[in-house]
């Protein structure tokens, strides 16, 4: 009886979570995989078409541009947000300034605001009556200045990237700060007494101590940048033309505007594969770097 009781309790505690999780995440992924090989016309599945969806997606210039834009988002996340986050965390951690709690509180604020609000706010900031535009007009004495970068085929992503930097840098700052606080303060003191330079402290103590969490953050940043949708949708909706299209928008368009569920699913699978591939790549780099340090 107690044995049965234990097994039953185990399942009672575990299964509700497991069933919801399997039903809503794992099962649909499998369905997605199957659907990605099917052809759809006017809301109806008309049969299997092998790799046609994948081929038509990968050869579509709009998808290629989306992919490139996602790569840019990834680069700004991994090479912008994370290093800036480390710098901010370090400046706060060394207690060179007073009011570290105040700075932390203020800088973290954007993480609590929804992407939609952030997108619309920054659209206003860059608009002809925005603070950015007005400010530039004041310094340059050019009352007709307007932000034109949005229309640029090459650089239309730049405002989006800057906003992403604004939105998420402090998330990494907070994560790194929490980890810096786990380094015993005696380590810093000993280094300072030995007359170690700040750069030595950073390279020999801080970065090795943070290496694992830098890896975790990179994984977070990569999977986050491949899924970005809200901010881009609310800020530019992929426009003008398709200059700021991202993969998730491309997916949205095929599934919800054209009701081509086959093609939409194929985009999903491509995103999953990219995500797994890139994370394994980062994992490999991390393992190599670990070995070098040891």
């Amino acid at each position: 009886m107690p044995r049965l009781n234990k097994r039953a309790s185990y399942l009672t505690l575990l299964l509700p979570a497991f069933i919801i999780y399997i039903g809503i995440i794992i099962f649909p992924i499998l369905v997605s995989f199957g659907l990605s090989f099917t052809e759809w016309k006017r809301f109806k599945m008309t049969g299997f078409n092998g790799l046609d969806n994948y081929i038509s997606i990968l050869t579509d210039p709009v998808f290629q541009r989306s992919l490139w834009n996602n790569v840019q988002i990834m680069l700004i996340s991994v090479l912008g947000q994370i290093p800036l986050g480390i710098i901010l965390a370090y400046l706060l951690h060394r207690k060179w300034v007073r009011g570290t709690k105040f700075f932390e509180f203020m800088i973290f604020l954007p993480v609590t605001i929804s992407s939609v609000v952030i997108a619309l706010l920054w659209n206003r900031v860059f608009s002809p009556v925005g603070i950015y535009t007005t400010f530039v007009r004041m310094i340059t004495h050019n009352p007709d200045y307007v932000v034109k970068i949005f229309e640029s085929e090459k650089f239309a992503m730049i405002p989006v990237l800057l906003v992403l930097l604004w939105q998420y840098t402090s998330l990494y700052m907070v994560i790194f700060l929490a980890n810096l606080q786990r380094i015993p303060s005696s380590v810093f003191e000993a280094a300072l007494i030995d007359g170690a330079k700040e750069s030595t402290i950073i390279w020999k103590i801080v970065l090795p101590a943070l290496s694992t969490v830098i890896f975790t953050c990179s994984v977070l940043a990569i999977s986050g940048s491949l899924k970005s949708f809200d901010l881009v949708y609310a800020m530019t909706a992929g426009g003008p033309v398709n200059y700021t299209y991202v993969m998730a928008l491309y997916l949205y368009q095929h599934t919800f505007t054209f009701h081509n569920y086959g093609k939409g699913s194929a985009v999903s699978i491509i995103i999953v594969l990219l995500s797994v591939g890139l994370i394994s790549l980062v994992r490999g780099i991390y393992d190599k770097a670990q070995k070098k340090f040891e």
Partner: protein
Amino acid sequence: MDHRMKTISHGWTVTAYIFLIIFTLITVLPVLWMLYSSFKPMGEIMMHPLRLPSAPTLANYRKAFEYGNLVVSFLNSVFYSGISTVSTVLLALGAGFALTKFGYKSSKVYFGFFTLGLLITVNSVITPLFIMETSTGLYNTRLGVVLPYIAFGLPMAILLSTSYIRGIPDALIEAAVIDGADYVQIFWKIILIVSTPVMATMAILTFLGNWNEFLMVFTLTSGDNMRSLPVSINSFAGRLNEDYGLQFAALVVGTVPMFILYLVAHESVIKGFGEGALKE
């Protein structure tokens, strides 16, 4: 030596102040500008974009509440985020208890399955999820939003709960078993009580994530009465809206609830995010 160190750290202090102050201004100024502009009429925003309101007015808010469907959306957001956060936290603690303290071999497999979910994003399942919900009648219902919210909250929550519950001494549970308590009682009376610190972290991360979520409500609901705050704000105050005052008011309404929570609980919020990524 001492003197040299002082000048060096003095230099760093100045650098740190400059860097942090610039960063803080860039962060806060747009938000402040949004806040005070929401009290200006459209004409004044056009004429003097940076000036503080000369005669602050609530007209923008009145209009925003009248046409923006904001009250219903706010209540929906509270419902979606609240129900799914409570469910996610309870389910994750239950699963965390089962996976760490029962010693079954299958635990590892289950745990592996759950952590796999950390890599899966909403857009990789949204197409089949949409088809499933339209064919089962869950589309455009509150349950149809809450269930995916719970599912997507579980992987991170289970990661946090297992690593915390693993640290609870087995003796505590064994003593209760000897006293004749069954496992479900142990869960309610011991695990839940002992786990309050991690519960707070889980609840904050889950709630904030759900509150600001956009894609699922946007694609899995259609009626105005089902929309959450971010979705309503986007359709009401979106890019095509030309009344800036009204738009600012709506954006402020979208920001204030979370800001109040942040103001009250910023220590736990910052701690939650800082520690959320630690647990590996």
